[in-house]
């Protein structure tokens, strides 16, 4: 626990040595709010709807992708760039534990980002907050972030053998956008590609929050979230079972420090 907290404090210090508070706000919060505004305005223009809750919820949840996929997915890349990757790989402690520790910081920032995006989106697009069950929203956000961060951890493992992580992560992020039902229902997509939504995060938490946001917490809400958390466990199990193999391949193929 002590090591975990010390790692987190180092990550926080590293972040704030690069950003000051105003830059941090612009980069992490304002950018997410503007991205959400872009998508919700497209929805507003195309559908002409006044009640834009479902788009605000969907796009606010999607804002965790930046932290949980784009940043968590390149943790090893950053170490490689700093020349510390070799030390991490040969150290006796678990590499996955190290990624998970750093990802905790991303999870925290993602939670703040999503929450702020949801509140700001609600204010911009006149959502009536009084009837919203915030327990449902916060639980939904939490489940969405956990499953997305787990996918980020799984993807980061592959950075040991490829230098094309930005291509991989951006493609995955766009696929999450398409299959998350943040902007249009998955049922609209061809039947033969819909299965992809079952193996990608966000769709269940977005759907659950949209259905039960104004409702009292029901058993179905937890069924949706349970599925999202099962997905998170599935990603972590795959990451655990593949990291040793990928580590071995990276050492054999000498791709560990390839740029």
């Amino acid at each position: 626990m002590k090591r975990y907290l010390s790692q987190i404090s180092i990550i926080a210090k590293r972040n704030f040595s690069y950003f000051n508070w105003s830059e941090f706000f612009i980069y992490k919060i304002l950018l997410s709010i503007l991205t959400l505004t872009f998508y919700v305005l497209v929805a507003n223009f195309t559908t002409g709807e006044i009640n834009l809750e479902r788009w605000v919820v969907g796009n606010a949840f999607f804002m965790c992708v930046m932290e949980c996929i784009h940043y968590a997915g390149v943790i090893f890349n950053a170490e490689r760039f700093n020349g510390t990757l070799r030390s991490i790989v040969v150290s006796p402690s678990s590499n996955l534990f190290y990624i998970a520790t750093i990802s905790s910081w991303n999870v925290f920032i993602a939670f703040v980002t999503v929450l702020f995006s949801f509140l700001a989106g609600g204010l911009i697009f006149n959502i009536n907050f009084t009837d919203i069950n915030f327990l449902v929203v916060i639980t939904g956000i939490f489940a969405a972030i956990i499953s997305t961060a787990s996918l980020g951890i799984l993807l980061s493992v592959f950075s040991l053998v490829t230098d094309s992580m930005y291509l991989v992560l951006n493609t995955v992020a766009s696929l999450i956008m398409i299959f998350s039902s943040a902007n249009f229902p998955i049922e609209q997509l061809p039947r033969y590609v819909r299965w992809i939504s079952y193996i990608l995060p966000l769709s269940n938490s977005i759907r659950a929050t949209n259905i039960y946001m104004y409702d009292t917490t029901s058993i179905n809400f937890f069924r949706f979230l349970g599925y999202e958390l099962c997905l998170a466990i599935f990603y972590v199990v795959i990451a655990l079972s593949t990291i040793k193999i990928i580590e071995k391949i990276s050492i054999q193929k000498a791709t560990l420090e390839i740029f």
Partner: protein
Amino acid sequence: MKSSSVLWTSFILQMKQSFARPMFKYVMLVSPFLSSVILGEIYRYAGRGDEYFLSYVVLGSGLWSLWGSIIFSSIGDINRERFTNTLSIIFSSPTDFRIIWLGKILGNTFLSVISFFISVLFSSILYGITISFNNFGFVLLSLLITIVSFIIISISTSYLLTLSRKTTLFMNCLEFPFMLLFGFAFPVSMLPTPIMYFSYIFPITWVIKLLRSSFSENLENFGYYLSFSILTIVLFIFISHLLYKIIYKQTKILGTLDMV
């Protein structure tokens, strides 16, 4: 060395360098397909007609791809040059920095235009949109003006970021906020009035209108949009010239060009 030769060398070298980067491969070859699907499905959900698809999905996703390629290449190149310790060498070489930089931006823009066409072609095939070329000459002219406007915006923005050591931060902040401002996927009239007027300063806002007009049958307001496109391009040429002068001076005073 002749300026034209420097320009050509920089142009060719930049294309090779850009295409070697996985991120550029994403924005050039993968993103056009995915952005077309995202915009197309949003419009399909709303049940919008072909006219909307042409203006906001086919052209919108094409411009999205073009803008993405420009941001993650031309604008980010300042940072890459800084990290490889070549920014100060380029800046202090006997050839004018602007010529070398223009070559780089032209190289990136050439590749980015390919992503524009990939996106336009893919989205029109996927959603069955027939693109009419009744006004072929006007379409060509508006495409040319569009490319020029993207080049001039790239130059101005990359100059602006020369002095900053946080280019990555700003580069990532440019994609969606400016797509929102320029009206790639919806008309700028959807924006609050002060922001709408602010968007009119940028040539990209006008060239988008120009491009949409060139594809319409009666070339609605084509001359009007063309005039404002040219006017704002000239304004940004002046701004980029001014920025270069300021940056050149500041670089000598601060000496922070190579600081990372």
